[in-house]
Structures are given as C-alpha cells and as structure tokens.
C-alpha cells in the first residue's frame, strides 16, 4: 500500500487542496531551498575535494618554485567564495518558511471570518475548511524550516571549518 504511487499522489493532491494556495508558495520555497541544500551537499562531497586538491597542488608548486603568489591568491579566494556560496540565501529561505506558514494562517482565518459573516456561528463544518487552511500551512512551514535548518547548520558548520583551515593554509604558506 505504501508503494502505490497513485495513492501518494491522491494524498498529496488532497493535502494541497485542503491547505490552499499558500502551500504552493511553500512548495516552491522548499524546492528552491532543497535544491540549494543538495547542491551544497554535492559540493561538499564531490566538488570540494577536487578543488582542494588543485589548491594544494598550487601551494606545492609555490613552495617548490617560490613563485606564483597571485595564482595562489586566486585559487584560495576562489575556493573560499565557493565555500560561502548560497548559504545566505538558504538562511533567508529557512526564515521565510514559517513566515509563509503564518501567511497561510492569516488567510485561513480570513476564510473563517468570511464564513462567520455569511452564515453566523451555526455552521462549524464550513468553518473547519478555513481552520484547515489556517493550520496546515503553518505546520508545513514549520516542518520545512526545521528540516532545512538542520541541513543548513550541518553544512554551514562544515563550511566554516573549511574556511578556517583554508585561512590557516594561506597563513602558513
């Protein structure tokens, strides 16, 4: 049952219909955020070791010949820029997720009050649609923010360590 993709799709469609249009914003934000996070992960495991090796080679070359300071500065600061890339954006996106969730809460409340204005307090079933719209985006925003924040902290911590070690390499040349 868990492997049936049509059931998953159905559940997801239901989820998006219940949560309202705010969920599409959230989905888009999450898509961008996780693309960047995955790119960072890819960089951390695949691209960075190669770049670092190249950098070390330049350093070796410099120590052997005693020349090529400019080249080394280029290499190291390029690597440093690559290390810092898109973290600020990821941080903003993580901060945006709960905000978008809050937006969903407020629009959901508007719907609840609309129903109140049209039908009075006598129809809790109609009100519950608005309450769902108020709570689901908040929940989704929180989940995305927490998961994104965990990944972000892990990668950022690693990035800071690498930056420090690079500065050390530069200093100790």
């Amino acid at each position, binding site marked *: 049952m868990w492997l049936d993709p049509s059931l998953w799709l159905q559940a997801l469609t239901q989820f998006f219909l219940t949560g309202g249009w705010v969920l599409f914003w959230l989905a888009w934000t999450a898509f961008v955020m996780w693309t960047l996070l995955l790119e960072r992960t890819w960089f951390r495991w695949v691209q960075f070791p190669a770049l670092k090796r190249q950098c070390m080679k330049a350093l070796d070359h410099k120590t052997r010949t005693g020349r090529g300071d400019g080249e*080394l500065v280029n290499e190291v*600061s390029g690597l440093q820029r690559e290390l810092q890339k898109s973290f*600020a954006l990821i941080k*903003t996106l993580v901060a945006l997720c709960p905000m*978008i969730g809050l937006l969903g809460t*407020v629009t959901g409340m508007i719907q609840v009050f609309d129903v109140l204005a049209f039908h009075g307090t006598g129809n809790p079933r109609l009100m519950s649609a608005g309450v769902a719209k108020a709570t689901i985006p908040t929940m989704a925003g929180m989940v995305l923010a927490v998961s994104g924040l965990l990944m972000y902290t892990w990668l950022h911590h690693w990035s800071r360590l690498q930056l420090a070690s690079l*500065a050390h390499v530069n200093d100790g040349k």
Partner: protein
Amino acid sequence: MTTFSVASYVNAVWLTARNLLSCLVVMTFILSNSTVFADEQAASLDGLLKQVQQSIHQTEAQDQQRLDEFLAQYKKQSGLLKEAKARLAKAESEQVRLKRQYEQNEQRLQQQQETLTARTGQLGEVFGVVKQQGQDLSGVIQDSMISSEYADRLSTIAFADQKRIPTMTDVKALWWLMLQEMTATAEIKRYQASVAQPNGVYESVDVLRVGPFVAIDEQGRFLNYEASSQQLSVYPRQPTGSSVEQAKAYFNGQADTLLIDPSRGNLFELIGRTPTLKERLEQGGPIGFIIIVLGALGLLVAVWRLFAVLIAEWRIKSQAKRIENVSLANPLGRVLSAVQEAKSDAQDASSIEVRLDEALLKEVPRLERGMSALKLLAAVAPLLGLLGTVTGMIGTFQSITVFGTSDPKLMAGGISQALITTVLGLCVAIPLLFCHSLVADRVRRLIQLLQQVAFSSLAEYMEAKRSPVIKNEDAANREVA
C-alpha cells in the same frame, strides 16, 4: 199621611222591585224607564200596580229568557269544552307519539353519526396524508430547479394549502408530480427557458440542466434558480478558472466533465458573496493602502537592484576574462585602472594597497545601493501589518462596546481589516526579503571577486618586481575571510 204612606208604599215596592232585580245589572236601565213611566202614570195606584206587576212579569220573562239563553250558552260551552278536552287528549297522545319518534330519530342520528365518524376516520387520515405530502412536495418543487422547465407545477399542487377536500384529480396530480420530480432529477436535459440576464431583461434561451443541481446556458454561464420567482437567472459572479469554458464545451457536447454544485446552488451563491481581490484590498483600509504602496516601491527597488547587479556581474566577468583590456564602464575595470595608476605613480607597496582599498571602497556603495532601503521596506511592511491589525481590533472592540457581541457581522469589518493588513504586510515582506537576500548574496560575492582579482593582480605585479607581497596577501585573505 196616606199620600205619604202610598208614596212610601210605592217607594217600598219600588225598593223591593229594585232589590229583587238588583242582581242583574242590565235591568237597571229598564227599571229607571219604568220608574219614569211610573211617575208619568202615577195617576192611579192600580195602574201603577198593574204596571209594576206587568213590568215584573216582563222582567221575569226577560230573566227567564236570559236564563234560558245562558243555560243554552252553558250547554253549548260545556260541549265545546268537552270537545276541546278531547282534542287536548288527542294532541297529548300525538305528542307522546311524536316524542317517542323524535327520540328514536335522535338515536338513529347518533348511530349514523357514529358510523360516519367510524367510516370517515380512515378517509380523513387519507386526506391528511395527501395534504401533508402535497405540502412537502410543493416545498420540494418550489426549491427545485426542475420547476424552471415545467412552469405550472406549483399551481397544480396548490390544493395542499387550500381548505378543501382533495379531489381525485388532485391526488392523481400529486403522484404524477412526484414521479416527474423523481425522473427529472436523473436527467440531463436541454430545453428553452426564460432566463434573467445580468442587465435584468428576461430572454428565452437554450438551457442545459443536470438533474436539480446545475443549469448552464449556451455561453457556459451557470444559472441560478430563484425559488421565489420560479425563474432562472445568470449568476452575477461565475466560478473562476476554466469552469465556464468547460461548461460551454459541455453544453456543445465537446467535453464530458462539468462543474456541479451538489448543494443545489448554495456553493455558487457563496462564490458570489466572496469578496473579490479589489474588495479585499479595500477592506485593508488606509494602512493596507500604505503597505501596498510601500510594497510596490520595494518591488521597483528590488527589480532595479537585481538588474543592476546582474549587469555588473556580467560586465565584471567579461572584464575578468580579458584582464589586460581595462574598461572604465565596470567596477572591476575601475578598480584595475586604479591599481595601474597607483603602480605607475607610486613604488611603495603600502601606498598601492591604500589606493586599492580606496578604489574598492568606492565600488562597494555603488553595488550596495538600495539594499538598505530594500531591507527597511521588508522590515517595515510586517510592522505596518501589525499596526493595521491593532487598529482593526480597536474598531472591532468599539463595535462590541456599542452593539455587543450579538451580531458577528458587525465585528467582521474590523476583523477583516486586521487580517488583511497582516496578509498584505507578509505578502510584501516575503518577496522583498527574498529579493534582498538574493541581491545581497550576489553583491557580497561580487565584492569578494573584486577584491580577489585586484589583490591577485597586485600580488603578481609585486612578484614581478620581486618585492615582498606577504603583507598584501594577508590583507586580501583577511578581507576574503
């Protein structure tokens, strides 16, 4: 003395005669006559005696005659009495007989009444059920969209509300209408009906009805069934999205899906009552307007900065590719030319570095222009939203103070202002924050790039001159880190 005695005698006789006859009142007149006569004839006593005797006889005869008459009358009257008594007895016996008959009739009447109630007891229930069903059905028919096709159904079922016994025709009409309603509920049918257009004019158009749920016209517009006038009208606000095109295609047989309102029009009515985007924005009030203006301003700044930074980035990258061909139209070119100038002017490494720093510092504000405004707007928008929330809540509480909590509709105005301003604040802040972060990230990377290129070129220059460049590199690394 004799005269006197005669006179007294006469008088005595007269008195005797009077005493004798005094019982008969009628005789008085005659006696007075005779008295008068006696007075006239008083010439002789004999004559008078005779006269008296004569009159006595006369009166006796008269008396006798009267007595006879009276007796005869008495006999006659008693006969009549007997007769009347006999009649009375006969009438009494008749009365007794009639009374008995009346009682019998009464009894029979009661029996008949009992039979009647016993027999109409079941029939009355039937009439009650028929009327009840009729009333129920007329309610259903009144609310049913199917009545727009069959116009006179309500008049057929009108007997349910009238004070009369339903006839056989009525009962037949009842079950016929029930069946019609039942079968029509399952139909998808096309027919002609007069439809109230949005401009208020009734036009006879082709209508496609899907059961009692939805009716559409040729242009795919959804129709509202008004129960009070038994007419169709075009909803002033149609459902959004592709529903109308879909309905049009369905009407023409090109599509097999159609939006259906299972609540028989309630949901469509709700669509009409939902405020449009414009109405929503108006609910935000002046604060909402300020937020929108600030948001538009922020968006302009964001777009301007994004393009400026992208152009600068593109120029810097193309400049970095051909480093020997320095152009003053881009930040990197300006920094490089400053370095070159410094190279030609001064020989001292530290003075070149100062010139380089100066050139870099000049570029930073150019690249970061508008960023603080963007950040400010992104921070102010939610605050303004909060302000709108608070003023809206103040309005709500004022209305509670005046009107109490009885009517939620009166409070809805303030609440919607509170919520709409919050939404607007968030809607402005979220994209602005995103744009700010995007642009700031790029700007920071560009500045790092500038520093890197500038310092590496300086380092190469210094190296070429075989002078120590450690200090410069240290500075570069500190900047970068």
